[in-house]
């Protein structure tokens, strides 16, 4: 059933078994997984079936981060039924094995469980996200490196495919009918949760206070509350719910809102001049199923990351067009091309030099953001039209992230050189390098998972520390985020949480 809360009377009290706040990837997945469980689910969405100015206006706030991302708060969230699935590009990938590990060169890294915990949920998430490749992914048995892309003989890099949702799964469109026709799930549109009211002892949530632009005030009471509002708004809601716990819910040790992460995207960091006649420099034999993948990237393998203390990342190489080459390729590209082709194709391999000009490839980096205590979101002094404090987002990085970028590119250049496939120019090392740093619009980490409340907001079951019936389904629970789009892991975690709630109510 679909209900427009603007049509309900003020003072209405809604009762459910599970109240899910946010109807994006996580919230809709959770509702779908619970709809036949016997539990009554209230799925609350701030926006409506279409985007509107009122709901979008709630996204404003203050962003302090890379200067090219001024509209970050508006472009990384969407207040509409379906949430950010409405603006998703369709690309995703599971986290790598190393992303779950407590790495001694990455402080505060490590998930409370390993990758095998999520594999069955990735499998279940694949059809929801319209991803067709997971069956093969599992058969290969490899979490790191999807090696049906048989690249050249890299010793330190692994080619990794980014899966494609096809057609792109817009949850608000795809699953509206399923939820609307469900007897046990009710979707409440135009339901802005202002705060979660805890019981006087703070050990549980009694109700969610809801309002909207029609001036209606409603209350939702439930046995379980799941906040699935995206990493920024999950933190915002828990911080704002401070009538009993003054620092916000599950925040006895000032962890809530901290360790905020978002992936950086660095375009034009390097150029590759290929030196071989045939195919692109990174292609081997057996590359197939291109139709299943958005694209693939080169990522330093586990051993390289460990031995060189590098962060996880992906390097994507794409062809520069003719107009870009002169402007953006490094100087001396002709000279280096001449040297490299002269050597690689004659001296080193014995074949004749290519007579036709080869394209130049540009490298774009997709980077891991390390968890930093001082990278955070918090409540500001400005208020939105519903009276809620707006967010202040403070994105912070460190030297390790910069150094890892340079090291990765240098290592990749060495690989291409060793294989006589090409030579690389590193623009990122140039003091005049001006390409902007973009964020991926993948906020994470603000209600991170950790067994201890001193280091996390939720435990390994995504339950808020010290609050028995409060859970979080969002990338906000990620202790680390790898370098890939988090969508696949968000949905997998939501399905896992659904199973937990069913077990909790004896319905597994």
């Amino acid at each position: 059933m679909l209900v427009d809360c603007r049509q309900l009377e003020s003072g209405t009290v809604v009762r459910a078994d599970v109240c899910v706040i946010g109807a994006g990837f996580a919230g809709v997945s959770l509702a779908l997984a619970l709809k036949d469980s016997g539990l009554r689910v209230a799925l609350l969405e701030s926006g409506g079936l279409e985007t509107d100015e009122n709901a979008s206006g709630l996204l404003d706030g203050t962003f302090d981060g890379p200067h090219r991302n001024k509209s970050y708060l508006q472009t990384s969230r969407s207040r509409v039924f379906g949430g950010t699935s409405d603006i998703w590009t369709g690309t995703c990938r599971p986290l790598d094995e190393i992303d779950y590990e407590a790495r001694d060169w990455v402080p505060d890294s490590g998930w409370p469980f390993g990758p095998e915990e999520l594999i069955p949920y990735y499998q279940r998430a694949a059809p929801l996200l319209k991803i067709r490749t997971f069956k093969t992914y599992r058969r290969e048995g490899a979490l790191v490196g999807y090696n049906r892309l048989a690249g050249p003989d890299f010793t330190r890099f692994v080619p990794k495919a980014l899966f494609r949702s096809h057609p792109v799964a817009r949850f608000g469109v795809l699953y509206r009918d399923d939820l609307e026709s469900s007897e046990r799930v009710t979707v409440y549109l135009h339901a802005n949760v202002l705060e979660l009211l805890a019981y006087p002892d703070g050990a549980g949530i009694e109700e969610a206070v809801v309002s909207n632009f029609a001036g209606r005030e409603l209350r939702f009471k439930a046995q379980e509350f799941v906040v699935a509002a995206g990493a920024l708004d999950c933190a915002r809601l828990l911080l704002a719910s401070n009538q009993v716990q003054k620092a916000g819910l599950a925040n006895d040790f000032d962890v809530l809102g901290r360790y905020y992460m978002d992936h950086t995207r660095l375009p034009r960091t390097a150029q590759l001049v290929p030196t071989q006649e045939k195919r692109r420099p990174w292609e081997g034999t057996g590359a197939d199923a291109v139709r299943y993948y958005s694209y693939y990237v080169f990522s330093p393998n586990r051993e390289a990351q460990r031995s060189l203390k590098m962060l996880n990342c992906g390097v994507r190489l794409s062809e520069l067009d003719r107009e870009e080459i002169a402007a953006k390729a490094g100087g001396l590209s002709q000279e280096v091309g001449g040297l490299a082709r002269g050597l690689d194709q004659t001296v080193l391999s014995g074949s004749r030099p290519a007579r036709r000009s080869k394209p130049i490839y540009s490298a774009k980096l997709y980077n891991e953001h390390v968890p930093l205590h001082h990278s955070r979101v918090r409540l500001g002094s400005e208020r939105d039209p519903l009276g809620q404090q707006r967010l202040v987002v403070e994105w912070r990085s460190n030297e390790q992230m910069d150094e890892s970028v340079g090291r990765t590119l240098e290592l990749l250049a060495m690989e291409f050189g060793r294989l006589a496939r090409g030579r690389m120019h590193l623009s990122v090392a140039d003091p005049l390098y001006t390409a902007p740093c973009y964020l991926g619009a993948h906020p994470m980490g603000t209600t991170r998972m950790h067994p201890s409340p001193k280091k996390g907001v939720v435990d390994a079951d995504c339950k808020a520390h010290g609050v028995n019936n409060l859970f979080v389904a969002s990338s906000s629970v990620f202790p680390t985020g790898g370098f890939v789009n988090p969508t696949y892991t968000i949905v997998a975690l939501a399905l896992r949480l659904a199973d937990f709630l069913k077990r909790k109510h004896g319905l597994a």
Partner: protein
Amino acid sequence: MSNTWTRRKMLASLGLVSAVGGAGLTLRYFTHERDYEEWVVEVDEVLPHVKDISALGRRYLEQAPGESDPELLIPLTFADEDGNLRGNPWKQLDKTIRLDYSTGNIFRVDGWVLSRTECRFSGLVALMMERGELQWPR
């Protein structure tokens, strides 16, 4: 382009090596596995790029001025791991360049990541061009 490389000219250019180890060494080094004519043909295939290689080599030498000496560069470029000039020079060059990339013996020329040996080879070509021992254009 006509091939103006002759055995005499090749020997003349590689006579730089003789300054290091004597003319006899030169002959032994370059005839061990190949005829001169075969070697000249191979170098000829590199020649279309010699202008580019020379320009790159000049940039390298500006950053490593201590190596602006063919007598220094030839063994640095073509010697094996024991420091000897023997066998097929191109095979040795191949081996050394790949080893450079494997072990991180790299050098950056204006942001380009190159094998140190490639840079030295380019530097050698630049010096030969500047001394008139390589003809360009042919």
